């Protein structure tokens, strides 16, 4: 006698709800692009397209790490200022300490990983709620960035290759005219790596498992605390990479920049179908989400909507995205 015959789930429920959200998000991106193309002739230009890609690169990389953290059922508010701290550390290593650019990059990413490890230990070992632990880290990183930089921007004037590496175009070298900066390639490379980590490795599996039902994972013998800490390290490493990228792009480490990036990153993930309740999400969705935010900001600027109003719109989108997430979850139960 078969058990399965009695209650066959509705066929529709076979589709993962975050997949539905991904399709919706992609549709929304298309609609936004069409809208701005019709609204302004300046929108659908190659240079503007590159501008959007550039604007997405840093927030996109931050959002990759955030996706892991949110899928695990946590939150990381510190990545914006950790990014700043990483940029400053990279600046100090390359300029004041005169170390090779590679060392600066590794150091910047590494300090992000350390901050993530600190978050992870506070949350997994000392059971401090993620919201509070990372809020504390937000200020710690912000303060350290200011102290280390002495409140002034650090310019990479002695190492032009740092900026050129990010803003130059390998693609342009092969396909003349298609000058897409390398920093965009870094985003896509990082996204590919993140996607593999999330779907093909033990770390990714346990990220989902912990977010789905932490207690069940623990009772199944998964070392929940260690993997949870690992998730925040991933978040920190991507924040560190974001710091290196923003420093290279601006050719300087700006100690007062960074606060607020974490909200854009969280928004990108949520728009892309990552559930704030944990257990669901994808890298592809997050990348689409990041593009939605930057395209929207870009389009509003082209339509000469004042900066203040752009902020109001993105704020509204955060609320809308979270509300969609709640509706989605309510329908599931």
């Amino acid at each position: 006698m078969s058990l399965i015959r009695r209650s066959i789930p509705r066929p529709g429920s076979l589709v993962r709800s975050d997949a539905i959200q991904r399709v919706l998000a992609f549709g929304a991106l298309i609609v936004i692009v069409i809208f701005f193309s019709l609204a302004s002739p300046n929108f659908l230009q190659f240079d503007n397209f590159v501008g959007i890609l550039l604007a997405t690169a840093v927030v996109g990389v931050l959002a990759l790490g955030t996706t892991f953290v949110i899928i695990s059922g946590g939150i990381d508010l510190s990545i914006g200022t950790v990014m700043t701290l990483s940029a400053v550390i990279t600046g100090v290593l390359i300029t004041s300490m005169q170390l090779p650019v590679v060392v600066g990059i590794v150091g910047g990413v590494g300090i992000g990983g350390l901050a993530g490890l600190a978050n992870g230990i506070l949350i997994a070992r000392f059971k401090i709620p993620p919201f509070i632990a990372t809020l504390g880290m937000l200020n710690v990183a912000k303060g350290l960035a200011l102290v280390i930089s002495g409140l002034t921007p650090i310019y990479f004037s002695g190492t032009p290759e740092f900026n050129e590496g990010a803003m130059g175009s390998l693609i342009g070298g092969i396909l003349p005219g298609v000058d897409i900066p390398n920093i965009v390639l870094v985003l896509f490379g990082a996204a590919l790596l993140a996607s593999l980590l999330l779907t093909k490795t033990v770390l990714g599996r346990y990220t989902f498992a912990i977010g789905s039902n932490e207690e069940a994972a623990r009772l199944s013998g998964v070392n929940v605390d260690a993997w949870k800490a690992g998730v925040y390290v991933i978040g920190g490493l991507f924040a560190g990479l974001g710091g290196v990228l923003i420093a290279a792009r601006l050719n300087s480490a700006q100690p007062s920049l960074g606060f607020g990036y974490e909200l854009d990153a969280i928004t990108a993930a949520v728009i892309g179908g990552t559930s704030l309740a944990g257990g669901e999400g994808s890298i592809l969705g997050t990348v689409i989400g990041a593009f939605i935010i930057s395209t929207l900001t870009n389009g509003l600027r082209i339509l000469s909507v004042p900066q203040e109003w752009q902020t109001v719109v993105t704020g509204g989108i955060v609320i809308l995205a979270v509300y969609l997430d709640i509706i989605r979850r309510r329908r599931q139960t």
Partner: protein
Amino acid sequence: MADVLVAMEHISKDFPGVRALDDCRFELRSGEIHALVGENGAGKSTLMKILAGVYTADMGEIRFKGQPVDIPSPHAAQDLGISIIHQELNLMPHLTVAQNIFIGREPRGRLRYDLDEGELNARTRQLLETLHLSLNPRMKVANLAVAQQQMVEIAKALSFDAEVLIMDEPTAALTETEIDELFRIIRQLRERGVGVVHISHRLEELKQISDRVTVMRDGRYIDTVATAEASIDRIISMMVGRTIFEATPEIPEHPDPEVVLEVRDLSRGRMVRNVSFQLRRGEILGFAGLVGAGRTEVARAIFGADRLDSGEVFVRGKLVHIGSPTDAVSHGIGYLSEDRKRYGLALGMDVETNVVLAAFRRFVGVLGWINSRLTRAAAESQVKHLAIKTPSLGQKVRNLSGGTQQKVVVAKWLTANTEILIFDEPTRGIDVGAKSEIYRLLNDLAKEGRAIIMISSELPEILRMSHRIVVMCEGRVTGELTSDQATQEKIMTFATQRAPA
């Protein structure tokens, strides 16, 4: 005689304020199905959680195949070949069947930390085939029916090549056919020499499947007998002991049987279907049924905690609209959740605050100040009235025993002047001594003229306390009995009476 697989001796375990286990023992042989029975709170689950490494014993010894062993974690238990299926489903709904079964032991690829998803699904398919379960390994668990989820749990437990399989009330949510299916698998395991521990409340079922029965009561070991030689009556009498059946004298019917609450055709989703009943002043109306019959859902709907699909509620003859718990309280209805800690109490606050919580408005002065003299007086009078055992009004509720906490919840609703009280499993997690106090309290409240609905899954409790009994099954009211008609058998018949498909 078969080999002894597991021997637990002199096991004791304390939880804050409760002695969960007191010098217990348990023996499991290979190739036997060993039933572990006892009333709720007898300590069955605790004892088995110790064997499965979820808890560690304060005292005692566990021997596995004759060797003394330490089982400090679930992982350690799995390594020994001891698997447990918990009472609550312990699955990750966002993961697939295969991912759930092999969580923590995924087949890895060449890079050590990468996953071999093909191998994972293949192994799962193989496992499911040997168990004759037709489940799709790639299906997300969230999309499975509860019974199928249960099967996933079982498959997972067996995937450890378990020599000991502990099942904590595995059949509570299953239908007859599914139970047959489960028993087929259990018997198959017995053939293979696995020792199976089966915890269940359904004694007929145990009679059918088990080889030996161990009875526990109030955290103590009572006896182990061969199932074939023990009648159900004898097992029951060992379970409940003598004291519980010395029923308190029946409470006389209240002289003024005014209907204070009437519910007509209440419906909400699948769990509440066309439920109608009446509740009279001074009456204790028992709500019986199996776990998941929809009793709590009815209570929540009446109380306004969940929205109704349809139906009417009359309070003292007047049609009322209850859209929220606030409305319910203003109509004099109080609900005492089965999960006191989550829904009934502000655990971190003191007794006084908890007592006045539902009626705060009465204690607030003109300027919005809380009149602490009035709140103290109200709390003091309730502490006296209900004999609440607390060192002071300032005692944090968290530090009180389960029975005392229950009384604080009652005090809260009495302070709010509720005439209709819905008790959802009022004695769950309360030790036997405190239980009889709760029973006395319910009787006293009824005598005062309040109307009481008591939801309980413990039949002796229902039979002992209720003037009338409403029985539910799958969201429907399947029977109504007066206290002199009611027997365990009649209630169970109604409680398992499914609607024709």
